[in-house]
């Protein structure tokens, strides 16, 4: 049976992991490659690297990082942050990334989704949607959730699928950082409506929240950052917990 995926997200700035992580035995908590290897070893199903580097020059280090990660890590990984062209994507995929994620650039120019799907295949095109509840409507936001757009979230999700996205990473900015659980109602509506997988993101605070998003939220995968980085929840414990709750989950024998 196809299993639900647990996806730790690593924020990268200037080639280093941000949000200090204290894994026992890690020589360098800021080294994304070592951290990624640890997560893979612990049973993470995929990884997401989100580049929050501010300057274009320093972004070039991302391709080197991807090359190092791909050489070391034997599970799939997605790279996002500041990607806005076919050339950007080509460089990252050639370096060994399995998927790329686009957000603001897709809002700015939706045709980019079509171009990427045609050039590289839908399977590697993840569209990240940051959504916030405004005046009783779900509105797509950009710039890290700070700037509202004119797009409503549900029609936008349908549009990105039609344009050739292979997966949606749905982050509720209302839930992000609250540790009060994922936005299950919205996730369920979008996941139920689309035929592509939906990754729930934003709000994970405890292991029950993952059960909820996989059942009530109909999510195909769940992404979290700080609860994994700060060891509030370990990936192996979470996966065992989910398995005990009869959620289909991969635990290596």
């Amino acid at each position, binding site marked *: *049976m*196809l*299993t*639900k*995926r647990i996806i730790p997200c690593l924020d990268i700035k200037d080639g280093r992991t941000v949000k200090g992580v204290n894994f026992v035995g890690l020589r360098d908590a800021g080294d994304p490659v070592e951290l990624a290897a640890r997560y*893979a070893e612990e049973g993470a*199903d995929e990884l997401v690297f989100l580049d929050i580097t501010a300057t274009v020059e320093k972004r070039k280090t991302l391709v080197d990082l991807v090359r190092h990660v*791909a*050489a*070391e890590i*034997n*599970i*799939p990984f997605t790279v996002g942050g500041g990607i806005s062209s076919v050339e950007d994507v080509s460089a990252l*995929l*050639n*370096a*060994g990334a*399995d998927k790329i994620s686009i957000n603001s650039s897709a809002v700015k120019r939706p045709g980019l989704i079509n171009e990427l799907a045609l050039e*590289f*295949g*839908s*399977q*590697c095109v993840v569209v990240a949607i940051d959504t916030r509840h405004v005046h009783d409507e779900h509105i797509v936001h950009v710039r890290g959730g700070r700037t509202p757009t004119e797009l409503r979230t549900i029609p936008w999700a349908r549009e990105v699928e039609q344009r050739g996205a*292979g*997966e949606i990473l749905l982050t509720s900015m209302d839930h992000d950082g609250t540790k009060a659980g994922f936005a299950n109602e919205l996730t369920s509506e979008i996941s139920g409506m*689309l*035929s*592509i*997988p939906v990754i729930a993101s934003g709000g994970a605070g405890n292991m029950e929240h993952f059960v909820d998003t996989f059942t009530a939220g109909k999510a*195909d*995968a769940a992404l979290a950052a700080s609860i994994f980085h700060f060891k509030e929840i370990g990936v192996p414990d979470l996966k065992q917990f989910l398995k005990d709750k009869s959620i289909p989950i*991969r635990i*290596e*024998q």
Partner: protein
Amino acid sequence: MSVVIINYNAGNVQSVTYALQRLGVTPVLSDEEEVIRSADRVIFPGVGEASTAMRFLKERRLDRVIKDLRQPVFGVCLGLQLMCRHSEENDTDCLGIFDIEVKKFEPKLKVPQMGWNTLTQMNSPLFKGIAEESYVYFVHSYYAELSDQTIANTDYVNSFSAALHKDNFYALQAHPEKSGKVGAKIIENFLDL
């Protein structure tokens, strides 16, 4: 041991190269007939669309080269589908190494299947040391039907051929290069054939 990865417009060539390097093998990427023919092992990767891939192979006469190989050959993901007779993906005639039709999943579940699923009824040295119901990573919208050449099953929408074998040809629908330790073991087993 010389290992050649057939170099064409397949998206996962780099990942397969890294997976071999992690096993201490440095593969050669090539689309040249002589180089491919003389290898001890040949890996036929694949990510993308069937008709485009077949056209690309035919233009370079790689379709004949692949069919005539005598050493162990390992098709991965789209590579498996291209080794079959025909694919529903844009009505494409494929290599015909396996006499099997490749069909699209009915949209009863999400398509593509994306993620980790189990291998069952494994029946080949390719899976030596791998426990029943081990997980491997899949990304695909089309599948090879079950046949007497099936050497492992996976269930998604319906039961399908997760792996195939005929003579010197082996193939896996999942991505061994992205399937953790299980995937690494499958690649190692292929090299040990």
